[in-house]
């Protein structure tokens, strides 16, 4: 039955403009994500098409398009070294969109443009699923729908097309909501993702060189959010533990040999404060999970390592929520002597001055605790400056930091301190993670950003086990007690969001974060687990895909019925005069004098009068009244009297 409606007709200018708008609406959000030359070429293609449409000139010939296609594909190949990765795929889709604009001649091509626009819109979500992205998506869907409608009905004015599209999308919204909530979610991926799928994710890495954390600190991106359930620890106690680095390899710190522990390598102390909270971790493409020191429960699909790190079984590539309990003090089991030996290793010929200082701390056979105290005294005695712009350092980072510049940030503090402790014969290691965070008073969640990244140390004391020592806090307490801004000398550039001025702006920001958090939790974080939780809360017992399918069908059916009823059963009642006139005609029809569809009131009356002389006066009067009401231009008050008369006469009309 499929016909090909209106395919043979070329696109009208209006349709061309709509398709161009569709292409632009789909491409614009992607423009910052594709290589600059491709963005420029695509914009050029759009402008070219617009100019051709404006001057009513013919489209470029096939050969030009073939050349441009080959050039762009070669460019993509050169840029990404492949045509099949995720980013290369997006770039190719953009190329197709640009070329299809220059090649669209018939409504069939128009359909291709619209479908391409849908795909482009989807690829935008690889990088960005924020609220603004949702808004641009709605705009793109609106334009694409209007373009589809213009392909069918080129004569509709633009505003009417837009209104039609808006109305239809509004009517589609309930279906979207039902499908979104009830469509059984599966945790992807269905198959392997391209290698470059997660290249855009940032976070702590598992090694540390001078500058690693510095780069991270300059980012305002959110690392994770925390909602405390009950008590909240003081901010200076908020150490969010991440990778533990034991091996110093030249200038680079790396994790030591560690094993996955079947259970937690420590046990909670009954009398230490406990905190329950939920972490929403942004994807960072690494397997570790962050928790307050020290987690005493394990999230599902996660394990603890022998150096007290929480690990997921797979790299975190989607936003992940997990509930945790932490206690600030825990009892350690006996530490493996290999671990302790590794925590004493130092490269032979590096940092000679620090090693010398460390050795000097051993004088007088002090206990390890006394050695630690002497080291801390040293740290306090020096005038260290916390700065994100430390001077360039050479091979002996610890030496230069401790004795030459005394300027640096947590990386330098912790690395130098560990070297010092090891030289003093106390096992020590670097712990990276995040410190502190910012409370959003609007929804009472804590936001931990990349700019909260931090590095501190742990030292092994025979009596106490691993003890956290934060040399940064010892030397520059403001960094931990307050925030980055307080720790830094005035005039140093700060990450934008770390600034304290503009109170109202801050207030606004808090609200925006709260909205974003809700968006992340309920829209973007709507995964199989969230779905199950929500449906259970809504009263569905043990939801599975069968039950969801049934509920989905039922609700979608209900909405469909309601919408169909609303759309189809809004027949107006004919106006009162019309109803009276039809009543009279029905009575005459029973006498065999049905009114013909083409017959006007006067003609009909004349015919009836000729056939039924007895009813002639009545029908003439009724017809005149009706015609006056329907087609006359009498004032409103006289219309009411005419209508009353008409009613009376029709009621009395018995032909």
């Amino acid at each position: 039955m499929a016909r090909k409606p209106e395919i043979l007709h070329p696109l009208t200018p209006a349709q061309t403009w709509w398709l161009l708008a569709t292409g632009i609406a789909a491409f614009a959000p992607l423009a910052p994500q594709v290589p600059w030359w491709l963005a420029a070429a695509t914009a050029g293609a759009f402008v070219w098409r617009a100019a051709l449409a404006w001057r009513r000139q013919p489209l470029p010939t096939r050969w030009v398009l073939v050349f441009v296609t080959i050039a762009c594909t070669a460019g993509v190949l050169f840029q990404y070294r492949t045509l099949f990765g995720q980013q290369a795929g997006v770039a190719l889709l953009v190329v197709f969109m640009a070329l299809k604009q220059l090649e669209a001649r018939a409504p069939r091509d128009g359909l291709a443009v619209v479908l391409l626009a849908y795909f482009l819109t989807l690829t935008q979500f690889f990088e960005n699923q924020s609220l603004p992205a949702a808004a641009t998506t709605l705009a793109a869907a609106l334009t694409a729908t209007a373009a589809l409608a213009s392909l069918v009905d080129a004569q509709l004015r633009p505003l009417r097309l837009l209104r039609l599209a808006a109305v239809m999308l509004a009517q589609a919204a309930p279906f979207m909501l039902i499908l979104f909530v009830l469509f059984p979610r599966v945790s992807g991926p269905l198959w392997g993702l391209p290698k470059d799928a997660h290249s855009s994710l940032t976070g702590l890495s598992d090694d540390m060189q001078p500058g690693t954390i510095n780069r991270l600190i300059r980012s305002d991106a959110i690392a994770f959010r925390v909602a405390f359930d009950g008590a909240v620890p003081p901010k200076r106690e908020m150490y969010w533990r991440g990778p533990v680095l034991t091996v110093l390899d030249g200038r680079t710190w790396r994790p030591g040999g560690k094993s996955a522990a079947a259970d937690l390598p420590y046990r909670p102390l009954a009398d230490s404060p406990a905190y329950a909270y939920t972490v929403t971790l942004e994807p960072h493409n690494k397997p570790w999970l962050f928790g307050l020191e020290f987690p005493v429960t394990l999230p599902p699909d996660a394990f603890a390592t022998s150096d007290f790190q929480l690990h997921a079984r797979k790299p975190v590539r989607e936003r992940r929520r997990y509930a945790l309990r932490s206690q600030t003090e825990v009892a350690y089991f006996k530490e493996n002597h290999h671990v302790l030996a590794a925590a004493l290793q130092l490269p032979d010929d590096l940092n000679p001055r620090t090693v010398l200082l460390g050795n000097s701390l051993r004088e007088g056979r002090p206990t390890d605790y006394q050695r630690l105290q002497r080291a801390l005294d040293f740290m306090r005695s020096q005038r260290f400056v916390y700065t994100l712009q430390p001077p360039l350092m050479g091979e002996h980072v610890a030496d230069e930091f401790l004795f030459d510049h005394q300027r640096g940030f947590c990386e330098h503090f912790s690395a130098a301190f560990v070297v010092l402790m090891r030289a003093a014969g106390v096992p020590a290691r670097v712990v990276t993670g995040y410190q502190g965070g910012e409370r959003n008073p609007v929804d009472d969640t804590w936001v931990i950003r990349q700019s909260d990244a931090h590095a501190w140390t742990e030292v092994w004391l025979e009596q106490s086990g691993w003890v956290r020592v934060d040399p940064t806090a010892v030397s520059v307490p403001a960094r931990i007690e307050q925030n980055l801004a307080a720790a830094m000398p005035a005039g140093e550039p700060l990450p934008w969001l770390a600034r304290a001025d503009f109170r109202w702006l801050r207030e606004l920001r808090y609200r925006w974060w709260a909205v974003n958090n809700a968006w992340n939790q309920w829209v973007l974080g709507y995964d199989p687990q969230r779905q199950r939780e929500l449906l259970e809360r809504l009263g569905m017992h043990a939801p599975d895909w069968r039950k969801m399918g049934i509920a989905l069908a039922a609700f979608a059916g209900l909405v469909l019925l309601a919408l169909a009823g609303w759309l189809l059963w809004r027949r107006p009642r004919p106006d009162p005069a019309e109803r009276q006139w039809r009543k009279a005609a029905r009575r005459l029809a029973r006498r065999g004098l049905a009114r013909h569809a083409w017959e006007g009131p006067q003609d009909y009356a004349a015919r009836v009068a000729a056939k039924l002389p007895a009813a002639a006066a009545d029908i003439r009067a009724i017809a005149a009244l009706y015609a006056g009401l329907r087609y006359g231009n009498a004032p409103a008050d006289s219309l009411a009297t005419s209508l009353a008369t008409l009613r009376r006469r029709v009621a009395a009309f018995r032909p």
Partner: protein
Amino acid sequence: MPLAPRRTFADRFAAWAMRMSGTRPPEPVPVTLGQRRIYVLPTRAGLLYSLSLVVLLIGAINYNLSLGYGLVFLLAGLGVVAILHTFRNLAGLSLTVGAPTPVFAGATARFPLFLHNPDPRERRRLRAFLPGQPATATSATMAADLPPQGSVRVLLPLPAPRRGWLAMPRVTLETVWPLGLVRAWGYAAPELACLVYPRPADAAPPAPSFGEVGGGSLAGDAGDEDFAGLRRHQPSDPPHHVAWKTAARMGAQAPLQTKQFAGTAAQALWLDWNHLPGMETEARLSTLARWVLDAEAAGLAWGLRLPGLELAQAHGPAHTHACLKALALHGEKT
């Protein structure tokens, strides 16, 4: 009347659909396309759209894009809404017919159809066509927009190969408005027939001039006693009948006029079936049709004699029509 040598699937479906909706052709007018007489299927564009949505959904699942789910579900909802809107564009439409203008065999008959919109909302891009007609010819010309509570006339072309009554086959009314993703259609079979005159013969033997006696050409045989008026000059008119004075007055641009005279000769003109012995029926009818047209063109009065039928001598469009109709229906059961 056989329409197509082979019943297509569409024909069979239409017949089944008409049966199911309880209407049997011919239907009384006005025909209203109730909701139970409207069928909806995706167009090819709609199928492509659905396929794209499936691919998009797989992408959203694979990359775990929540907004991707949102987009796909919104577009799926849009598809459902499009079904309702397309359906509504057709549902409740009513249809009446007009009188088709008779045509000669071999030409194309055009059936006038009136579409009425009883609702206070516009209906757009409605197409009506007859089975077997190329969709492009009809869809291009027959897409109609109906204002609220308005009417529109569409002409449905159908080739008329043979003389007689050409019944209008079932009409398909369809629309893909607003998005072109789904097609809603319905059938109506109001009674309507177009009269098809016999095709006038190209090379006809000369017509008889007087009564039973044959011979002579029609042209110039009009009487010349009483001046009756002027008409457009034809090349076969004798030069002495040209209204030279009028031509001189009007100037060179004006067409020549021929003086017409009502004469006794015309009163005796009979176009008789029996003047053409030995010809086949259709050829005879064709020839008679040509004579009728020639006689009318020449401004003559003529009578027509067919077996079992005699039309008195007269002239004018009504008489021409009556004669051609008699020829068209010769031997037909009506």
